């Protein structure tokens, strides 16, 4: 067995970061270059957006519901049960809605992109595409990135809404809260900065999900085993990057809006 070389390992990591950065940069610059694959983008939007609706709705609903359930006992101790709506709204809109939606879509679509593009790579379909004068980054990567960013933005909003509804159902049926009280505190709790934070996170997460999925797919090698490895790595990397970037976006925006 060959000895492990730290230098080679470091070089490989730097090379991977460089390759990813170039691909991610190209996927963005392609938006402003011809040809634009509108039909491919719409198809991906349908696959990613509409296809992810059930898991996003279910995740959002039960997260909101469990949030209301878990916090009710603590709030009750302080006699602040009426603040349940505020707590659910802030938690869902600022944090849980975008992050959980991002993680769900990463699990579903980063893996899908990595396996689809990985299979194309190992069966020489990517080379065939290049050989026919078609840029894979334009044809395959940019439509996925654009579609994921746009769809995750709307899925994030939907998740917030469904989460608030889940919290409301628990508050109304189990905690006996007045509906008007729940929705009023929820609405009043949200400030401009909270909404901006809730809307900007899915955009960044969408870009991470698609670019990471495509990067691992296009760098797959070693047959079907390589495709499997690329798929796993894509989900892991996308999920970790979502959580890491979530921290930095939160820190940046809390500083910016002076919370």
């Amino acid at each position, binding site marked *: 067995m060959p000895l492990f070389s730290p230098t080679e390992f470091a070089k490989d990591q730097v090379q991977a970061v460089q390759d990813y950065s170039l691909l991610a940069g190209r996927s963005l610059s392609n938006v402003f270059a011809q040809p634009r694959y509108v039909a491919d983008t719409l198809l991906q939007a349908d696959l990613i957006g509409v296809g992810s609706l059930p898991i996003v709705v279910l995740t959002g609903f039960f997260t909101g519901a469990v949030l209301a359930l878990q916090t009710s006992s603590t709030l009750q101790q302080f006699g602040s049960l009426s603040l349940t709506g505020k707590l659910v709204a802030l938690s869902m809109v600022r944090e849980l809605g975008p992050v959980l939606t991002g993680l769900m879509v990463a699990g579903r679509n980063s893996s899908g992109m990595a396996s689809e593009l990985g299979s194309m790579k190992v069966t020489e*379909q990517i080379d065939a595409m290049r*050989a026919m004068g078609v840029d894979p980054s334009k044809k395959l990567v940019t439509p996925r990135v654009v579609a994921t960013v746009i769809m995750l933005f709307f899925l994030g909003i939907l998740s917030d809404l469904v989460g608030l509804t889940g919290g409301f159902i628990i508050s109304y049926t189990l905690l006996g809260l007045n509906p008007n009280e729940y929705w009023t505190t929820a609405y009043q709790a949200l400030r401009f900065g909270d909404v901006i934070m809730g809307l900007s996170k899915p955009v960044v997460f969408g870009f991470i999900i698609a670019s990471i999925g495509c990067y691992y797919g296009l760098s797959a090698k070693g047959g079907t085993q390589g495709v499997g490895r690329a798929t796993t790595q894509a989900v892991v990397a996308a999920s970790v990057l979502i959580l890491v970037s979530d921290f930095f976006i939160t820190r940046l925006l809390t500083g910016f809006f002076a919370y």
Partner: protein
Amino acid sequence: MRFEDVAMSFDHPVLEGISFRLPRGETKILMGVAGTGKTLILKLALGLVKPDSGHINVLGNEITAMHEQELFALRRNIGMVFQESALFDSQTVEENVAYRLIEETGKITEEIHQRVLEALRFVELEHTVSLFPAELSGGMRRRVAIARAIITQPEVLLYDSPTGGLDPVTSNTIIELIVKQRDVYHTSSLMVTHRLQDAFTMASHYFDREQNKMVPVGDGMDCGDLNTRFLILRDGKIIFEGTAAELLRCTDPYIREYLS
């Protein structure tokens, strides 16, 4: 196409000092044992990989100095048939064959449909137009790949083991198509093959348009007229370049053993 002193290595040197010319209208058959860099030469010719050193000139363009974006335009004049066909498995035969044309128009128009049928007629697979690659046999997939490569009538065709892993009858059908392309359209081509029989069939047969089939070269015709030459690689170097007759006369012990 011109290769000048091209070298490339991965963990070890794969190609060294590769120099040859492919004049317009000529067919060059690349032969050699597995791992000698034959497929790599095709990928270099397309600019899919860059050499470590040397120059490659294709259709008047020095491709070693070109960026990927510039190469896309050049590649539209080159057709490539991959070893395992590399058809897009989620698209129908029609979409695969029309791929380059759809890129230009965005959709399959009636004119494109007719051109697809014409290309499929050339490979005698007109009836497969709405099928998916998974529904075709290995030989049919290679023929569809040929149709996809020739639909735009490129100036250069590259074939990577087009008959590899196929039965002799199917192989012969594919060689006949390649010979037809050579003799009807006079396209320059570079063909990698492991099968000696296929290579010599190409060098000793021509396509008779009247009979619409491949026939052996007759008494009044010289095999040299077929514009087909051989190039043999050994350990990443070219050890022979010439016609079939010159190859058969060659006294090099390695080549004698390779041919036997």
